[in-house]
């Protein structure tokens, strides 16, 4: 759907150029919900704004539906933008227009006849659950309702892609969940490709199918959400993932464990089906180690179960080696945790 090729963006500044993006390349598949994650300043906002050329890239290509946006004329670009919806952190609604007027706005821009505009607005209001707010002005709406107007407005021209620039960052957790579930419904029912920029890990966990991790202006990792959660490769992704599963072991506990020379700590992660296997039972039977569970969490990444266990294995070196072999044989991801 969208191919990003070697994208770079440099902001010239007197004190030396600022590189916001450097050689970023990845593909956003049709129908996916693609999360772009990174700490603030990593370049993610610049990246999403390059996808509809609100920000003109310094180099590279943005290919949407087969056309390289960077090579289009002003007029062609305006037409291409009508097929790329966008919603914003601060909603950016027109204060002087009602809810209906705001949703009608892109249709007016595109020159749609008035009666068609009316019927399209009438279709969109129930889709975002605002039937009773058609005549209200943005100042009379809550943040969540404003973002719903933003979504309806972005969908008015039946776009192929919806870009979300920190769309839930200004909302409370409950409203965030309702907006995310609305986005997921739209993704399913309309087959719309959605690109989400966020610094909130749970947004990625809750609805994204794929994720790209930006760090220091570069794309350090991109894969399906399950892959990144199970085996994050980059340091940033690891921090993000451990942040959300809170698998930090209290320092005191670590020090206490150090005194036992015959034990080791391992972190076992499992995805999906493995969660239902009697793994602990098998582990003890196959290797005769003593197992204590220090920490455990089972969460879900979208619909896939994702578990994370911190185990202390006590036994001879031979027994522990067997234990490792068993765990690896179960298709589990095993990582030895150092005492430091």
């Amino acid at each position, binding site marked *: 759907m969208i191919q990003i090729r070697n994208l770079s963006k440099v902001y010239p500044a007197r004190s030396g150029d600022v590189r916001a993006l450097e050689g970023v390349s990845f593909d956003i598949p049709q129908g996916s919900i693609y999360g772009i994650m990174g700490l603030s300043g990593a370049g993610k906002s610049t990246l999403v704004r390059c996808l*509809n050329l*609100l920000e003109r890239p310094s180099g590279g290509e943005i290919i949407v539906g087969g056309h390289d946006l960077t090579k289009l004329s002003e007029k062609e*670009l*305006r*037409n*291409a*933008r*009508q097929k*790329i*919806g*966008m919603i*914003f952190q*601060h909603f*950016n*609604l*027109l*204060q*002087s*227009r009602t809810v209906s007027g705001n949703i009608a*706005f*892109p249709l*007016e*821009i*595109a020159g749609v006849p008035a009666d068609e505009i009316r019927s399209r607005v009438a279709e969109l209001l129930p889709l975002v659950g605002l039937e009773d707010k058609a005549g209200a*002005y*943005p*100042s*009379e709406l809550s943040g969540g309702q404003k973002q719903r107007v933003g979504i309806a*407005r972005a969908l008015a*021209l039946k776009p192929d892609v919806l*870009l979300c620039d920190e769309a839930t960052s200004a909302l409370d957790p409950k409203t965030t969940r309702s907006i995310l579930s609305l986005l997921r419904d739209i993704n399913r029912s309309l087959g719309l490709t959605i690109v989400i920029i966020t610094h909130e890990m749970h947004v990625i966990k809750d609805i994204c199918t794929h994720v790209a991790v930006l760090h220091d202006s570069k794309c350090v990792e991109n894969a399906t959400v399950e892959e990144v959660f199970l085996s994050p490769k980059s340091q940033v992704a690891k921090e993000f993932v451990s942040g959300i599963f809170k698998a930090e072991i209290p320092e005191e506990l670590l020090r206490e464990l150090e005194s036992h020379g015959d034990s080791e700590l391992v972190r076992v992660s499992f995805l999906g089906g493995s969660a239902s296997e009697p793994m602990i039972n098998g582990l003890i039977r196959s290797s005769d180690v003593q197992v204590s569970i220090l920490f455990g969490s089972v969460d879900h990444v979208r619909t896939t179960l994702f578990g994370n266990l911190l185990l202390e294995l006590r036994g001879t070196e031979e027994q522990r080696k067997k234990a490792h072999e068993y765990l690896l044989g179960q298709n589990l991801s095993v990582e030895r945790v150092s005492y430091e």
Partner: protein
Amino acid sequence: MSDGYIASMLGLLTPAVLETLYMVAASAVMSYVIGLPLGILLVVTSKGHIVPAPWVERTLGTIINILRSAPFIVLMVALIPFTRMVIGTSIGTTAAVVPLVVAAAPFVARVVESSLKEIPHGVIEAAQSMGASPFQIIYKVLLPEAKSSLILGAAITIINVIGYTAMAGAVGGGGLGDLAIQYGYNRFRTDVMIITVAVLVVFVQAVQTLGTRLAVSAMHTKR
């Protein structure tokens, strides 16, 4: 008070009020015809806006600043040859409108500029993301969103122009200001002076009240 006194006072006031209204209306309309597009141009050509062209903004800004720094009475006299060229004479009420417009149009441009700059950049960006052309952004986003602020700016402009018209007597423009000088000051008619000032106060109040009321009704925010 005798009927004769009232009649003579009305005889003095009526033409002066009409001249003032004519000058204010004509110059306010003309200065918006010129100043509004200039104000829009100042905003849209500024850095980071929809058609950035910093040299346009700088050149225009400099010209506006020069025109605005000349005191109106000086500008009016200096423009006499120009006025004669435009309307054929440099004396009379219509002749006074020319320097009024030259003075008010740059003022309007700045007032419009500051109103349009209040619009959050995100709203403009949202319109761009939908594929709006610069022209569509101007008449569907900038002007409607700034409507209430533009109305307040118009009230300020009109009040300013009312002040300028007091000096129109210098080129034979007539009006309330001229009446106050000719009768109230030169002929020691304090009563004429007081009534003239009272009428001007009523004018200014009326314009400001109407402006504020229209601005509030155009505003859809709870601020």
